[in-house]
């Protein structure tokens, strides 16, 4: 067995163990109740179940984790089937190494700040009032598509290095989803990883215009000089 195959198998086992340990040994419930900080002014997520707020028994939490994992994979499958070419281009844009991923994370962070600020400023006028919801939904969808592309690229990269076929998109997506999901389950650090992954996905999706291959440019507005 090649070294990379052993690495991939170890990563899969490690991810499953991490999810199990996080679900069985760590309970977000009391921490969430105590440290939700400014969100404590409103009953956010009240009663949304153990998957979101923690609480419940270990098996409840494990069930919640399983539901989360399956839901994320199925959403990824839907997006893969809905726009395979766009997703391929987007995933290729994410394959440039750590420096490029960091650039996309910064782009996502800057866009999140800008969108939040513009959304809040737009509530002063009646005609721009729906903008916070529209901008928020757009950013969420872009981030979701970007995260699917990121997990897909991660899976493809590992499968190719291991010498397994990269001609099974669903297997690549499943592997990437499992790894990213397990990383976001690490107590405390997982929240940071989740934010970083979503910002990177949003940055990559918006920078590549959802993988359309078209650049962000004002050139089409410039008219040809008349000869």
């Amino acid at each position: 067995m090649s070294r990379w195959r052993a690495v991939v198998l170890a990563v899969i086992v490690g991810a499953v163990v991490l999810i199990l340990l996080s679900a069985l040994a760590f309970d977000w419930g009391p921490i969430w109740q105590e440290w939700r900080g400014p969100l404590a002014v409103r009953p956010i997520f009240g009663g949304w179940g153990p998957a979101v707020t923690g609480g419940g028994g270990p098996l409840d939490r494990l069930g919640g984790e399983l539901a989360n994992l399956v839901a994320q994979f199925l959403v990824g499958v839907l997006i893969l089937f809905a726009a395979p070419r766009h997703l391929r281009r987007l995933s290729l844009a994410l394959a440039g190494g750590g420096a490029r991923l960091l650039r996309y994370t910064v782009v996502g962070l800057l866009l999140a700040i800008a969108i939040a600020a513009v959304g809040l400023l737009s509530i002063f006028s009646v005609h721009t009032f729906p903008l916070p919801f529209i901008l928020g939904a757009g950013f969420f969808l872009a981030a979701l598509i970007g995260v699917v592309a990121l997990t897909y690229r991660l899976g493809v990269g590992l499968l190719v290095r291991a010498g397994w076929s990269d001609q099974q998109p669903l297997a690549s997506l499943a592997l990437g989803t499992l790894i990213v999901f397990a990383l976001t389950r690490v107590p405390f650090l997982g929240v940071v990883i989740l934010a970083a992954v979503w910002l990177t996905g949003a940055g990559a999706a918006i920078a590549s215009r959802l993988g359309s291959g078209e650049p962000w440019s004002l050139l089409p507005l410039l008219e040809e000089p008349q000869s």
Partner: protein
Amino acid sequence: MADRMDELLTHLPAEPCPDDLVGRIQSRLAATRRRARWMEQGRMWSLAGAAALGTWLLIPRLGILSTAVPGFSVSGVGSWLSWVLASPADAGGALLSQVLSWGSGLAECMQFGLVLALVLMAAPALYGAARMIASTSAREGVVG
């Protein structure tokens, strides 16, 4: 097919080039690039200053923004869904009214300092994102 450059070339005077033409062109180019670099640096520093000022204004007012988070609860959503099934028009109207009151409440508690902070942060963030996207596209060979 003759293009505009060919047309311009026909209008060039048929006199010998001055000796210092190359040097003048190079110095003019250097001056133009220097000016562009200074303008770019000035823009960057101005936007960085605006972002820093916006952050400084925003931090003490973060508590106000916590009221921007709308409240959700399963029981609330459940009762609203029952209302939708019973009377969709009333439920839709109530939702719209709730959203409008949330927005107007938020607008009322937004002080001038907070609005200024948001403006000061939005512009540099958008500019920075646009610059990074443009440079990433250029590295990938996508010319806009």
